[in-house]
Protein backbone atom coordinates (compact mmCIF):
# COMPACT_ATOMS: atom_id res chain seq x y z
CA UNK A 1 0.00 0.00 0.00
CA UNK A 2 1.56 3.30 -1.01
CA UNK A 3 2.29 5.86 1.61
CA UNK A 4 -0.38 8.35 2.65
CA UNK A 5 -0.63 11.60 0.81
CA UNK A 6 -1.09 14.75 2.87
CA UNK A 7 -1.68 17.13 0.02
CA UNK A 8 -2.37 17.15 -3.70
CA UNK A 9 0.49 17.91 -6.05
CA UNK A 10 0.01 20.86 -8.33
CA UNK A 11 -2.57 23.59 -8.33
CA UNK A 12 -5.16 21.89 -10.54
CA UNK A 13 -7.43 18.88 -10.68
CA UNK A 14 -7.65 18.14 -14.38
CA UNK A 15 -8.29 14.44 -14.29
CA UNK A 16 -8.12 11.22 -12.34
CA UNK A 17 -5.36 10.12 -14.72
CA UNK A 18 -3.01 12.54 -12.93
CA UNK A 19 -3.81 11.35 -9.40
CA UNK A 20 -2.07 8.63 -7.43
CA UNK A 21 -4.13 6.16 -5.42
CA UNK A 22 -2.82 7.85 -2.26
CA UNK A 23 -4.15 11.19 -3.44
CA UNK A 24 -7.50 9.62 -4.27
CA UNK A 25 -7.68 8.17 -0.75
CA UNK A 26 -6.82 11.57 0.68
CA UNK A 27 -9.69 13.19 -1.18
CA UNK A 28 -12.16 10.50 -0.12
CA UNK A 29 -11.04 10.64 3.52
CA UNK A 30 -11.31 14.42 3.54
CA UNK A 31 -14.77 14.15 2.00
CA UNK A 32 -15.84 12.07 5.01
CA UNK A 33 -15.13 15.00 7.29
CA UNK A 34 -16.79 17.40 4.88
CA UNK A 35 -19.94 15.31 4.82
CA UNK A 36 -20.27 15.86 8.55
CA UNK A 37 -20.19 19.63 8.04
CA UNK A 38 -23.23 19.37 5.79
CA UNK A 39 -25.11 17.68 8.64
CA UNK A 40 -24.60 20.50 11.14
CA UNK A 41 -27.12 23.22 11.90
CA UNK A 42 -24.57 25.80 10.75
CA UNK A 43 -23.34 24.27 7.51
CA UNK A 44 -20.23 26.37 7.16
CA UNK A 45 -16.57 26.28 8.00
CA UNK A 46 -14.13 29.13 7.38
CA UNK A 47 -11.54 27.05 5.55
CA UNK A 48 -11.79 29.00 2.26
CA UNK A 49 -12.68 32.33 3.79
CA UNK A 50 -11.48 35.15 1.58
CA UNK A 51 -10.78 32.89 -1.37
CA UNK A 52 -12.45 33.63 -4.68
CA UNK A 53 -13.81 30.76 -6.74
CA UNK A 54 -15.23 31.31 -10.21
CA UNK A 55 -17.48 28.71 -11.82
CA UNK A 56 -17.04 28.97 -15.57
CA UNK A 57 -19.57 26.80 -17.36
CA UNK A 58 -19.49 26.58 -21.13
CA UNK A 59 -22.01 23.78 -21.14
CA UNK A 60 -25.34 24.16 -19.41
CA UNK A 61 -25.49 22.25 -16.16
CA UNK A 62 -27.71 22.75 -13.18
CA UNK A 63 -26.72 19.75 -11.13
CA UNK A 64 -22.94 20.03 -11.19
CA UNK A 65 -22.89 23.79 -11.02
CA UNK A 66 -25.21 23.94 -8.01
CA UNK A 67 -23.22 21.21 -6.31
CA UNK A 68 -20.00 23.19 -6.73
CA UNK A 69 -21.66 26.41 -5.60
CA UNK A 70 -22.99 24.80 -2.43
CA UNK A 71 -19.60 23.25 -1.74
CA UNK A 72 -17.87 26.60 -2.20
CA UNK A 73 -20.29 28.43 0.05
CA UNK A 74 -20.04 25.81 2.78
CA UNK A 75 -16.31 26.46 2.84
CA UNK A 76 -16.99 30.22 3.14
CA UNK A 77 -15.46 31.03 -0.25
CA UNK A 78 -16.62 33.98 -2.31
CA UNK A 79 -18.16 32.34 -5.32
CA UNK A 80 -19.55 33.52 -8.61
CA UNK A 81 -20.87 31.58 -11.57
CA UNK A 82 -20.41 32.58 -15.18
CA UNK A 83 -22.57 30.78 -17.71
CA UNK A 84 -21.17 31.35 -21.16
CA UNK A 85 -24.00 31.60 -23.66
CA UNK A 86 -23.28 29.90 -26.93
CA UNK A 87 -23.50 33.32 -28.55
CA UNK A 88 -20.33 34.52 -26.82
CA UNK A 89 -18.50 31.61 -28.33
CA UNK A 90 -20.02 32.34 -31.71
CA UNK A 91 -19.04 35.99 -31.34
CA UNK A 92 -15.52 34.74 -31.14
CA UNK A 93 -14.21 35.39 -27.65
CA UNK A 94 -11.67 32.68 -27.16
CA UNK A 95 -11.27 30.59 -24.04
CA UNK A 96 -7.89 32.21 -23.52
CA UNK A 97 -9.35 35.72 -23.67
CA UNK A 98 -12.08 34.84 -21.20
CA UNK A 99 -9.57 33.22 -18.89
CA UNK A 100 -7.20 36.17 -18.95
CA UNK A 101 -10.06 38.54 -18.25
CA UNK A 102 -11.10 36.51 -15.24
CA UNK A 103 -7.53 36.09 -14.09
CA UNK A 104 -7.22 39.87 -13.90
CA UNK A 105 -9.65 39.67 -10.98
CA UNK A 106 -7.29 37.32 -9.16
CA UNK A 107 -9.43 34.28 -8.48
CA UNK A 108 -7.95 31.45 -6.46
CA UNK A 109 -9.74 28.69 -8.26
CA UNK A 110 -11.61 28.40 -11.53
CA UNK A 111 -14.07 25.52 -11.83
CA UNK A 112 -14.64 24.99 -15.52
CA UNK A 113 -16.90 22.80 -17.62
CA UNK A 114 -16.30 22.89 -21.36
CA UNK A 115 -17.41 21.03 -24.46
CA UNK A 116 -13.87 20.41 -25.76
CA UNK A 117 -11.61 17.71 -24.40
CA UNK A 118 -8.44 19.26 -23.09
CA UNK A 119 -9.92 22.75 -22.70
CA UNK A 120 -9.08 22.74 -19.00
CA UNK A 121 -5.48 21.79 -19.72
CA UNK A 122 -5.26 24.92 -21.85
CA UNK A 123 -6.90 26.93 -19.06
CA UNK A 124 -4.54 25.56 -16.42
CA UNK A 125 -1.50 26.40 -18.55
CA UNK A 126 -2.78 29.95 -19.06
CA UNK A 127 -3.96 30.84 -15.55
CA UNK A 128 -2.20 31.17 -12.25
CA UNK A 129 -5.44 30.18 -10.54
CA UNK A 130 -6.00 26.53 -9.78
CA UNK A 131 -8.30 24.85 -12.29
CA UNK A 132 -10.86 22.22 -11.34
CA UNK A 133 -12.20 20.23 -14.26
CA UNK A 134 -15.99 20.04 -13.99
CA UNK A 135 -16.14 18.07 -17.22
CA UNK A 136 -14.22 18.59 -20.45
CA UNK A 137 -15.76 17.22 -23.61
CA UNK A 138 -15.42 13.46 -23.74
CA UNK A 139 -12.29 13.40 -21.62
CA UNK A 140 -12.80 13.44 -17.83
CA UNK A 141 -15.20 14.47 -15.07
CA UNK A 142 -12.98 13.80 -12.06
CA UNK A 143 -15.29 15.01 -9.28
CA UNK A 144 -18.03 12.74 -10.59
CA UNK A 145 -15.76 9.70 -10.39
CA UNK A 146 -14.67 10.75 -6.92
CA UNK A 147 -18.22 11.03 -5.67
CA UNK A 148 -19.07 7.72 -7.30
CA UNK A 149 -16.15 6.11 -5.51
CA UNK A 150 -17.13 7.78 -2.25
CA UNK A 151 -20.64 6.39 -2.60
CA UNK A 152 -19.41 2.87 -3.36
CA UNK A 153 -16.96 3.01 -0.48
CA UNK A 154 -19.66 4.29 1.84
CA UNK A 155 -21.93 1.36 0.99
CA UNK A 156 -19.35 -1.37 0.55
CA UNK A 157 -16.56 -0.28 2.88
CA UNK A 158 -13.91 -0.55 0.17
CA UNK A 159 -13.18 -0.33 -3.54
CA UNK A 160 -10.51 -2.97 -4.04
CA UNK A 161 -11.75 -6.27 -5.35
CA UNK A 162 -15.29 -5.12 -6.12
CA UNK A 163 -16.85 -5.89 -9.49
CA UNK A 164 -18.19 -2.69 -10.99
CA UNK A 165 -20.17 -2.75 -14.23
CA UNK A 166 -20.36 0.43 -16.32
CA UNK A 167 -22.98 0.34 -19.03
CA UNK A 168 -23.85 2.71 -21.83
CA UNK A 169 -22.33 5.09 -24.35
CA UNK A 170 -18.70 4.49 -23.47
CA UNK A 171 -17.38 6.37 -26.47
CA UNK A 172 -18.68 9.82 -25.59
CA UNK A 173 -18.65 9.55 -21.81
CA UNK A 174 -16.20 11.48 -19.65
CA UNK A 175 -17.80 9.91 -16.60
CA UNK A 176 -16.79 6.51 -18.00
CA UNK A 177 -13.16 7.46 -18.48
CA UNK A 178 -12.76 9.07 -15.06
CA UNK A 179 -14.42 6.12 -13.36
CA UNK A 180 -12.23 3.62 -15.17
CA UNK A 181 -9.06 5.45 -14.18
CA UNK A 182 -10.16 5.74 -10.57
CA UNK A 183 -11.56 2.27 -10.08
CA UNK A 184 -8.57 0.55 -11.68
CA UNK A 185 -6.15 2.61 -9.62
CA UNK A 186 -8.00 1.57 -6.48
CA UNK A 187 -8.01 -2.12 -7.40
CA UNK A 188 -11.59 -2.66 -8.49
CA UNK A 189 -12.57 -5.06 -11.28
CA UNK A 190 -14.23 -3.00 -13.99
CA UNK A 191 -16.56 -4.42 -16.65
CA UNK A 192 -17.44 -1.99 -19.43
CA UNK A 193 -20.43 -2.73 -21.61
CA UNK A 194 -21.98 -0.93 -24.56
CA UNK A 195 -22.75 -1.34 -28.25
CA UNK A 196 -19.64 -1.90 -30.38
CA UNK A 197 -20.45 1.31 -32.20
CA UNK A 198 -20.11 3.21 -28.93
CA UNK A 199 -16.98 1.52 -27.59
CA UNK A 200 -13.76 3.56 -27.83
CA UNK A 201 -10.69 2.04 -29.50
CA UNK A 202 -8.22 0.19 -27.34
CA UNK A 203 -9.89 0.50 -23.95
CA UNK A 204 -9.02 -3.04 -22.96
CA UNK A 205 -5.53 -1.56 -22.56
CA UNK A 206 -6.86 0.24 -19.49
CA UNK A 207 -6.96 -3.05 -17.58
CA UNK A 208 -10.73 -3.57 -17.80
CA UNK A 209 -13.07 -6.18 -19.27
CA UNK A 210 -15.04 -5.08 -22.30
CA UNK A 211 -18.22 -6.83 -23.42
CA UNK A 212 -21.28 -6.14 -25.52
CA UNK A 213 -23.48 -8.35 -23.32
CA UNK A 214 -25.12 -6.66 -20.37
CA UNK A 215 -25.73 -9.98 -18.66
CA UNK A 216 -22.03 -10.73 -18.61
CA UNK A 217 -21.18 -7.33 -17.19
CA UNK A 218 -23.84 -7.34 -14.52
CA UNK A 219 -23.45 -10.90 -13.29
CA UNK A 220 -22.17 -10.91 -9.73
CA UNK A 221 -21.51 -7.19 -9.79
CA UNK A 222 -21.24 -5.22 -6.56
CA UNK A 223 -22.15 -1.98 -8.28
CA UNK A 224 -23.89 -1.28 -11.57
CA UNK A 225 -23.30 2.15 -13.02
CA UNK A 226 -25.36 3.49 -15.90
CA UNK A 227 -24.23 6.14 -18.32
CA UNK A 228 -26.60 8.54 -20.04
CA UNK A 229 -27.55 7.83 -23.58
CA UNK A 230 -27.66 11.24 -25.16
CA UNK A 231 -30.64 11.44 -27.48
CA UNK A 232 -28.59 13.28 -30.05
CA UNK A 233 -26.45 10.16 -30.53
CA UNK A 234 -29.27 8.78 -32.63
CA UNK A 235 -28.30 11.21 -35.38
CA UNK A 236 -24.82 9.76 -35.45
CA UNK A 237 -26.21 6.45 -36.59
CA UNK A 238 -24.68 4.57 -33.68
CA UNK A 239 -27.74 2.46 -33.03
CA UNK A 240 -31.06 2.18 -34.81
CA UNK A 241 -33.54 3.23 -32.10
CA UNK A 242 -33.94 3.96 -28.40
CA UNK A 243 -36.39 1.09 -28.18
CA UNK A 244 -33.80 -1.34 -29.43
CA UNK A 245 -31.15 0.15 -27.16
CA UNK A 246 -33.33 -0.40 -24.11
CA UNK A 247 -34.14 -3.90 -25.25
CA UNK A 248 -30.49 -4.90 -25.62
CA UNK A 249 -28.69 -2.70 -23.09
CA UNK A 250 -31.29 -1.33 -20.72
CA UNK A 251 -30.80 -2.12 -17.05
CA UNK A 252 -34.05 -3.86 -16.17
CA UNK A 253 -35.03 -5.60 -12.93
CA UNK A 254 -34.35 -8.96 -14.62
CA UNK A 255 -30.82 -7.94 -15.46
CA UNK A 256 -30.23 -6.39 -12.04
CA UNK A 257 -31.22 -9.71 -10.50
CA UNK A 258 -28.03 -11.19 -11.97
CA UNK A 259 -25.92 -8.89 -9.82
CA UNK A 260 -25.15 -9.57 -6.17
CA UNK A 261 -28.21 -9.34 -3.92
CA UNK A 262 -26.80 -6.26 -2.19
CA UNK A 263 -25.53 -4.61 -5.36
CA UNK A 264 -25.99 -0.86 -5.69
CA UNK A 265 -27.37 0.93 -8.74
CA UNK A 266 -25.73 4.17 -9.78
CA UNK A 267 -26.29 6.87 -12.40
CA UNK A 268 -24.59 10.25 -12.80
CA UNK A 269 -27.85 11.86 -13.88
CA UNK A 270 -29.94 13.10 -15.41
CA UNK A 271 -31.60 9.78 -16.23
CA UNK A 272 -33.42 8.77 -19.37
CA UNK A 273 -36.01 6.49 -17.83
CA UNK A 274 -36.86 3.63 -20.12
CA UNK A 275 -33.73 4.08 -22.21
CA UNK A 276 -30.70 3.15 -20.19
CA UNK A 277 -32.53 2.36 -16.98
CA UNK A 278 -35.94 1.02 -16.10
CA UNK A 279 -37.92 3.24 -13.72
CA UNK A 280 -38.38 0.45 -11.21
CA UNK A 281 -34.62 0.08 -10.98
CA UNK A 282 -33.99 3.83 -10.72
CA UNK A 283 -36.46 4.13 -7.85
CA UNK A 284 -35.77 0.76 -6.27
CA UNK A 285 -34.12 0.10 -2.90
CA UNK A 286 -30.74 -0.68 -4.45
CA UNK A 287 -30.52 2.73 -6.08
CA UNK A 288 -28.02 5.14 -4.51
CA UNK A 289 -28.59 7.82 -7.13
CA UNK A 290 -29.68 10.44 -4.61
CA UNK A 291 -26.77 9.57 -2.29
CA UNK A 292 -24.48 10.30 -5.20
CA UNK A 293 -25.88 13.80 -5.40
CA UNK A 294 -25.47 14.40 -1.66
CA UNK A 295 -21.97 13.04 -1.71
CA UNK A 296 -21.15 15.31 -4.61
CA UNK A 297 -21.13 18.33 -2.31
CA UNK A 298 -18.84 16.67 0.24
CA UNK A 299 -16.41 15.46 -2.42
CA UNK A 300 -16.27 18.85 -4.08
CA UNK A 301 -15.69 20.51 -0.72
CA UNK A 302 -12.79 18.13 -0.19
CA UNK A 303 -11.26 18.89 -3.59
CA UNK A 304 -11.59 22.65 -3.16
CA UNK A 305 -10.19 22.51 0.34
CA UNK A 306 -7.19 20.44 -0.69
CA UNK A 307 -6.41 22.69 -3.64
CA UNK A 308 -7.03 26.08 -2.07
CA UNK A 309 -7.44 25.84 1.64
CA UNK A 310 -4.98 23.25 2.77
CA UNK A 311 -1.62 24.24 4.20
CA UNK A 312 1.27 24.78 1.86
CA UNK A 313 4.15 23.39 3.85
CA UNK A 314 2.50 20.77 5.95
CA UNK A 315 5.25 18.31 5.19
CA UNK A 316 7.79 20.44 7.08
CA UNK A 317 8.44 18.95 10.51
Amino acid at each position, binding site marked *: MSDRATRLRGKDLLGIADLTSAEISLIL*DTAEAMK*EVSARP*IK*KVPALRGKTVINLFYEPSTRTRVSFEVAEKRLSADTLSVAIATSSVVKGETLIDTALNLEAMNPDIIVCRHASSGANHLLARTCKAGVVNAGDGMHEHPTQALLDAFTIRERKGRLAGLKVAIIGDLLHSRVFRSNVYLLTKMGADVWACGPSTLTPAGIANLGIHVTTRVEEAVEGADAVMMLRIQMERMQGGYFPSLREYFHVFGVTPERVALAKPDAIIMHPGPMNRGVEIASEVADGPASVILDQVANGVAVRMAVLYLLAGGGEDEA*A*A
Partner: protein
Amino acid sequence: MPVLMDRERMSRTLTRIAHEILERNRGVDDIALVGVRTRGVPIAKRLAAILHDITGHEVATGALDITLYRDDLMKTAVGPQPIVRRTEIPFSIDGRHLVLVDDVLYTGRTIRAALDALIDFGRPSTIQLVVLVDRGHRELPIKADYVGKNVPTSRRETVQVRLAEIDGVDEVLLDQVEGGTA
Protein backbone atom coordinates in the same frame (compact mmCIF):
# COMPACT_ATOMS: atom_id res chain seq x y z
CA MET B 1 15.37 13.18 25.82
CA PRO B 2 14.13 14.37 29.22
CA VAL B 3 10.94 12.74 30.41
CA LEU B 4 8.63 15.34 31.85
CA MET B 5 5.95 12.92 32.88
CA ASP B 6 5.79 9.16 33.09
CA ARG B 7 2.77 6.89 33.18
CA GLU B 8 2.21 7.07 36.88
CA ARG B 9 2.62 10.80 37.02
CA MET B 10 0.19 11.26 34.09
CA SER B 11 -2.40 9.10 35.79
CA ARG B 12 -2.16 11.05 39.07
CA THR B 13 -2.30 14.33 37.16
CA LEU B 14 -5.47 13.40 35.34
CA THR B 15 -7.10 12.28 38.58
CA ARG B 16 -6.17 15.57 40.18
CA ILE B 17 -7.64 17.51 37.21
CA ALA B 18 -10.85 15.50 37.36
CA HIS B 19 -11.31 16.50 40.99
CA GLU B 20 -10.59 20.12 40.13
CA ILE B 21 -13.29 20.05 37.47
CA LEU B 22 -15.77 18.65 39.96
CA GLU B 23 -14.82 21.21 42.55
CA ARG B 24 -15.02 24.20 40.23
CA ASN B 25 -18.33 23.12 38.68
CA ARG B 26 -19.83 21.72 41.85
CA GLY B 27 -20.48 18.33 40.29
CA VAL B 28 -20.97 17.02 36.74
CA ASP B 29 -24.38 18.50 35.94
CA ASP B 30 -24.46 19.89 32.40
CA ILE B 31 -20.80 19.20 31.91
CA ALA B 32 -19.55 17.88 28.56
CA LEU B 33 -15.98 17.12 27.53
CA VAL B 34 -14.74 17.89 24.01
CA GLY B 35 -11.28 16.61 23.08
CA VAL B 36 -9.34 18.50 20.43
CA ARG B 37 -7.99 16.03 17.83
CA THR B 38 -5.85 14.19 17.90
CA ARG B 39 -4.45 13.57 21.38
CA GLY B 40 -7.00 15.69 23.23
CA VAL B 41 -9.56 13.00 22.46
CA PRO B 42 -8.11 10.06 24.47
CA ILE B 43 -7.32 12.45 27.33
CA ALA B 44 -10.95 13.63 27.34
CA LYS B 45 -12.15 10.01 27.34
CA ARG B 46 -9.91 9.18 30.28
CA LEU B 47 -11.18 12.17 32.20
CA ALA B 48 -14.75 11.10 31.47
CA ALA B 49 -13.93 7.62 32.81
CA ILE B 50 -12.39 9.05 35.98
CA LEU B 51 -15.37 11.37 36.51
CA HIS B 52 -17.66 8.42 36.08
CA ASP B 53 -15.68 6.44 38.67
CA ILE B 54 -15.95 9.28 41.14
CA THR B 55 -19.56 10.31 40.62
CA GLY B 56 -21.21 7.30 39.01
CA HIS B 57 -22.51 9.57 36.25
CA GLU B 58 -21.76 9.34 32.49
CA VAL B 59 -20.21 12.50 31.14
CA ALA B 60 -20.96 13.34 27.51
CA THR B 61 -17.76 13.31 25.45
CA GLY B 62 -17.08 14.50 21.91
CA ALA B 63 -14.19 14.96 19.47
CA LEU B 64 -13.44 18.20 17.63
CA ASP B 65 -11.33 18.54 14.44
CA ILE B 66 -10.10 22.09 14.09
CA THR B 67 -8.28 21.70 10.74
CA LEU B 68 -10.97 23.61 8.84
CA TYR B 69 -10.73 26.51 11.29
CA ARG B 70 -6.99 27.03 11.33
CA ASP B 71 -5.64 30.51 10.69
CA ASP B 72 -2.83 31.25 8.23
CA LEU B 73 -0.15 31.09 10.85
CA MET B 74 -1.09 27.57 11.72
CA LYS B 75 -0.17 26.17 8.36
CA THR B 76 2.99 24.66 9.74
CA ALA B 77 3.82 22.54 12.71
CA VAL B 78 0.61 22.21 14.65
CA GLY B 79 1.58 18.65 15.35
CA PRO B 80 1.27 15.67 13.02
CA GLN B 81 -2.38 15.87 11.96
CA PRO B 82 -2.52 16.88 8.31
CA ILE B 83 -5.65 14.93 7.38
CA VAL B 84 -9.03 16.47 8.05
CA ARG B 85 -11.01 14.09 10.23
CA ARG B 86 -14.57 14.02 11.38
CA THR B 87 -15.85 16.11 14.24
CA GLU B 88 -18.11 13.98 16.43
CA ILE B 89 -20.19 15.89 18.93
CA PRO B 90 -23.26 13.70 19.28
CA PHE B 91 -25.06 15.98 21.75
CA SER B 92 -26.31 19.51 21.88
CA ILE B 93 -23.80 21.95 23.38
CA ASP B 94 -26.39 24.66 24.05
CA GLY B 95 -26.42 25.66 27.72
CA ARG B 96 -23.67 23.21 28.62
CA HIS B 97 -20.51 23.77 30.59
CA LEU B 98 -18.09 22.60 27.93
CA VAL B 99 -14.65 21.49 28.94
CA LEU B 100 -12.22 21.61 26.04
CA VAL B 101 -9.37 19.15 26.40
CA ASP B 102 -6.03 19.32 24.61
CA ASP B 103 -2.60 17.81 25.19
CA VAL B 104 -0.30 20.84 24.85
CA LEU B 105 -1.07 24.57 25.12
CA TYR B 106 1.49 26.66 23.21
CA THR B 107 0.61 29.70 21.04
CA GLY B 108 -3.08 29.40 21.77
CA ARG B 109 -4.10 29.33 18.10
CA THR B 110 -5.46 25.79 18.25
CA ILE B 111 -7.77 26.78 21.09
CA ARG B 112 -8.81 29.93 19.25
CA ALA B 113 -9.78 27.75 16.27
CA ALA B 114 -11.58 25.32 18.60
CA LEU B 115 -13.62 28.18 20.08
CA ASP B 116 -14.62 29.30 16.57
CA ALA B 117 -15.67 25.78 15.70
CA LEU B 118 -17.71 25.36 18.87
CA ILE B 119 -19.62 28.59 18.27
CA ASP B 120 -20.84 27.06 14.98
CA PHE B 121 -22.27 24.14 16.93
CA GLY B 122 -24.28 26.09 19.42
CA ARG B 123 -24.07 28.30 22.48
CA PRO B 124 -22.52 26.74 25.57
CA SER B 125 -22.99 28.46 28.94
CA THR B 126 -19.29 28.33 29.64
CA ILE B 127 -16.19 26.93 28.02
CA GLN B 128 -13.30 25.81 30.19
CA LEU B 129 -9.95 24.48 29.09
CA VAL B 130 -7.95 21.46 30.27
CA VAL B 131 -4.39 20.98 29.03
CA LEU B 132 -1.93 18.30 30.04
CA VAL B 133 1.07 20.59 29.51
CA ASP B 134 1.30 24.38 29.27
CA ARG B 135 4.63 25.26 27.60
CA GLY B 136 4.22 29.03 27.47
CA HIS B 137 4.81 31.42 24.48
CA ARG B 138 1.18 32.45 24.08
CA GLU B 139 0.46 34.59 20.99
CA LEU B 140 -3.21 35.16 21.87
CA PRO B 141 -4.92 35.95 25.18
CA ILE B 142 -5.83 32.33 25.96
CA LYS B 143 -5.51 30.76 29.40
CA ALA B 144 -6.04 27.21 30.59
CA ASP B 145 -8.35 26.64 33.55
CA TYR B 146 -6.77 23.28 34.42
CA VAL B 147 -3.11 22.54 33.81
CA GLY B 148 -1.39 19.20 34.28
CA LYS B 149 2.10 20.64 34.34
CA ASN B 150 3.66 23.99 33.57
CA VAL B 151 6.87 23.51 31.57
CA PRO B 152 8.88 26.57 30.62
CA THR B 153 10.38 25.89 27.16
CA SER B 154 12.40 27.66 24.52
CA ARG B 155 11.14 28.00 20.93
CA ARG B 156 13.76 25.52 19.83
CA GLU B 157 12.18 22.82 21.95
CA THR B 158 9.01 20.80 21.46
CA VAL B 159 6.82 18.92 23.91
CA GLN B 160 5.80 15.42 22.72
CA VAL B 161 2.84 13.84 24.43
CA ARG B 162 2.54 10.10 23.86
CA LEU B 163 -0.61 8.21 24.84
CA ALA B 164 -1.16 4.49 25.08
CA GLU B 165 -4.28 4.69 22.88
CA ILE B 166 -2.31 6.16 19.97
CA ASP B 167 1.39 5.69 20.62
CA GLY B 168 1.39 2.58 22.80
CA VAL B 169 2.95 4.32 25.81
CA ASP B 170 2.07 7.08 28.26
CA GLU B 171 4.76 9.70 28.59
CA VAL B 172 5.57 13.36 27.98
CA LEU B 173 8.96 14.17 26.46
CA LEU B 174 10.91 17.33 25.81
CA ASP B 175 12.71 17.38 22.47
CA GLN B 176 14.89 19.75 20.45
CA VAL B 177 13.54 20.95 17.06
CA GLU B 178 16.79 21.54 15.21
CA GLY B 179 19.69 19.14 15.39
CA GLY B 180 17.65 16.65 17.41
CA THR B 181 17.15 13.04 16.35
CA ALA B 182 13.93 12.70 14.34
